[in-house]
């Protein structure tokens, strides 16, 4: 079952902060975050593992609440280069591919 992402879209001014949420109805082993810029392939940002620590990629960080099966992506002091669509992907078991499911995506636009 596809995870739910919110919001669907967000528009920011450069320097502002944003939070993107990803939630699942299933017990998760991991949550992955990818960013896709217009016309390009998705690129891996980070992974949150069950029982693991909060992760960070440049000024982007993420957390995983195992009790709620929810992950949040925090974009701090947004830059123009952060624009794109952010996808979360979830796994219920490690090291298999079939149970990996992407969310519908959140479109982020950062304006000057």
């Amino acid at each position, binding site marked *: 079952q596809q995870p739910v992402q919110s919001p669907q879209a967000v528009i920011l001014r450069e320097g502002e902060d944003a939070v993107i949420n990803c939630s699942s109805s299933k017990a998760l082993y991991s949550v992955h975050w*990818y960013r896709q810029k217009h016309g*390009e*392939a998705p690129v*891996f940002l980070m992974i949150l593992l069950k029982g693991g620590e909060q992760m960070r990629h440049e000024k982007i960080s993420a957390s995983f609440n195992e009790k709620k099966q929810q992950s949040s992506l925090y974009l701090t002091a947004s830059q123009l280069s952060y624009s794109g669509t952010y996808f979360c992907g979830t796994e219920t078991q490690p090291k298999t*591919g079939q149970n*990996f*499911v992407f*969310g519908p*995506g959140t479109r982020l636009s950062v304006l000057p």
Partner: protein
Amino acid sequence: DVKVTQSSRYLVKRTGEKVFLECVQDMDHENMFWYRQDPGLGLRLIYFSYDVKMKEKGDIPEGYSVSREKKERFSLILESASTNQTSMYLCASRPLGGSSYNEQFFGPGTRLTVL
């Protein structure tokens, strides 16, 4: 750098044609994936392969088949293309171990239009 290549960036086919989409990765990854990407729906898994000649259906396998005769190559086949298969198709690979084992590496995508 890991490289995943897809045979075409853009493809136009007619209804009923047999269509082959090819994907090649150069990092000896065990897992390979075919996704379909449509606006508002994200990336939906069509098929997954965890080894040569091994495949598993994803969420939307109807109308598609796959072939993996060699480890580096994973092909998606539309036996009889239909207009509702017009979409962006993305291939990805992923290692089973190593420091980057969690990451999927994507190809540039093939935008298929079926007329």
